[in-house]
């Protein structure tokens, strides 16, 4: 099987005038369809830089990036936008929903830019289905400021899913969430991954990474280790354990 994401000696250097920052200094990485990868590392180790390129928001300074066999370095701005629209779904740390816009319309957003165009009725139906998948169908007409952080992140996940992407990319998706909601979001990721969607997630929390199948650790712009997760957590178990702990606190 061919990798869906293939980085070869990937480098990204930021230039600000005479100042040069080598954020990623040569990473080779293959991610295959169906994987659930957590990218870990200290702050400034180049995780986001790598995710930006994987997400086709950026291009390598040097080296090669193939997404589903397509060389990203050779594409122009519009072609990258098209790839993001069709093949990728993004989930951000800060949710990045449009404020004063309903959950449903937020989820419809990627379909506004789909080609061939999607009819308004179908957009609505698909957005509703995506909201159902994250368990928020009954909140479809709520605005982001009427939703909790976990709910907002689930709207963002629904938006990322709505165009049926090959890969779901998440940069610190639980960074703004409490531990219980984080576990719930991991549950959503695990079930999507079970349905065959490749998930790549940046996190610096070890227990969040343990929900993934593979752990890539970065330091100073290089990959330090790349291992299968041995003692994998599952959200159902983790939630049950959290409930039990809470009960114990209440009893005490």
């Amino acid at each position, binding site marked *: 099987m061919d990798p869906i994401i293939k980085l070869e000696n990937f480098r990204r250097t930021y230039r600000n005038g005479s100042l040069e920052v080598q954020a990623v200094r040569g990473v080779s990485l293959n991610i295959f369809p169906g994987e659930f990868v957590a990218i870990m590392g200290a702050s400034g180790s180049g995780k986001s830089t790598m995710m930006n390129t994987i997400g086709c928001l950026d291009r390598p300074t040097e080296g090669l990036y193939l997404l589903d066999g397509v060389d990203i370095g050779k594409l122009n701005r*519009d072609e990258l936008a098209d790839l*993001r629209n069709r093949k990728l779904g993004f989930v951000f740390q800060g949710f990045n929903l*449009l404020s004063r816009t309903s959950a449903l319309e937020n989820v419809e957003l990627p379909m506004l830019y789909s080609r061939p165009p999607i009819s308004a009725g179908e957009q609505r139906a698909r957005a509703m289905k995506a909201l159902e998948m994250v368990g928020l169908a009954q909140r479809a007409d709520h605005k982001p400021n009427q939703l909790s952080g976990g709910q907002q992140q689930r709207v963002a996940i629904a938006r990322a899913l709505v165009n049926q992407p090959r890969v779901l990319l998440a940069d610190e998706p639980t960074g703004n969430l409490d531990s219980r909601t984080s576990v719930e979001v991991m549950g959503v990721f695990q079930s999507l991954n079970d349905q065959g969607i490749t998930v790549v997630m940046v996190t610096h929390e070890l227990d969040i990474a343990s929900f993934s199948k593979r752990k890539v650790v970065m330091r100073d712009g290089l990959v330090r280790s790349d291992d299968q997760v041995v003692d994998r957590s599952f959200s159902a178990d983790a939630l049950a354990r959290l409930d039990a702990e809470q009960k114990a606190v209440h009893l005490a």
Partner: protein
Amino acid sequence: MLAIIRTALRAIRRNILRSFLTMLGIIVGISAVIVGVSMGAGARAEVEKQIASMGNNLVIIFSGNMSRGGVRGGFGMSGTLTERDYESLRRDVPGVTGVSPEVRTTVQVAAGNQNTSVSVTGVSADYIDIRAFKFQAGENFTQLDVQTANKVCLIGKTTAATLFGEGVNPVGEVIRMKNVPFTILGWLASKGANAFGSDQDDVILMPYTSAMKRLSGDTKFRSFSLQVASPEVLPDATNEIASVLRQMHQITDGKEEDFSIRTQQEMSEFATASNRVMTILISAFAGISLVVGGIGIMNIMLVSVTERTREIGIRLAVGARARDVLRQFLLEAVLLSAVGGLLGIACGYWLAPLLTKFAGFPTLISQSSVILAFTVSAIIGVVFGFFPALKAANLDPIEALRYE
């Protein structure tokens, strides 16, 4: 597309006060366009009506040379035009359907215990037809009255009202000028003011022979009014008139003429030229406020792009292409200016009649001026919205997403 319009409308509604203030420049500019154009059109329609009230296919021959700076070189004085000129114009110019000499004198006129000062014009019997006068009552004098310098006259509505009272039929009454009693044969229907503002109803017309012999003592005419059969024969007739008069006045080639020929068209052009100046002034004002309005739109769009940097980042991340973002912001700018344009048009519709009512300016709002105004406002949106939209479209998605 519908979704883009919805987004744009929402963005405008979100800052409704700010949007309205932004539109103000456009609203003022577009209402100035509407009012200005309507004033121009109204004035033109008025002038055309007035020119038409002078008669059809009219040629006026003045004594004296008006093209030579000094208009008064003979104009208005005893004149250079003679009875013999009159005869030959009638006889020798083809296509002429009527000729009338004109002598003018201002006299005191009395009827009963009323008296007033009035401009008396001595004319031939053709004059009534040439100048498109109609009778409210009574009838024209005859060729015989001209030959005998009969003591008869025709009276305008204003003069009659002064002497006999509003609406009283003066036909058959006798009025005295320089102690000569004249019988009123006809009461002229109203013509209103002429293109130069004087009241065409404050007149007494009489046979030119009567005016010259009994009132002014003039022996020459100050002008001729002449009517030709159709506009087509006008140029030929004008040339023929000139050559006849040059011959009569023994003016050799290269010498200056002692008369001037004006056609109705020329007078109409002169009258419109003067209100063209006003139209230009208003257009300049409209242009300036439209540019100011456009800059206002550009400014507010730049603010909007900055405020919504993160939104733009999100849109780019989920697959919006540069042109999608460009289109969105361009549409928003066009919507702003077009709504401003519509409000401006509404304002213009409201202002123009007020201007007529309170300042007396004739106004006429044409459909084409409304279409023009709307198109201009939309174009302003495109022109001034383009730079901010381009700025939005060229944002880097990563930086836009990171923007606080």
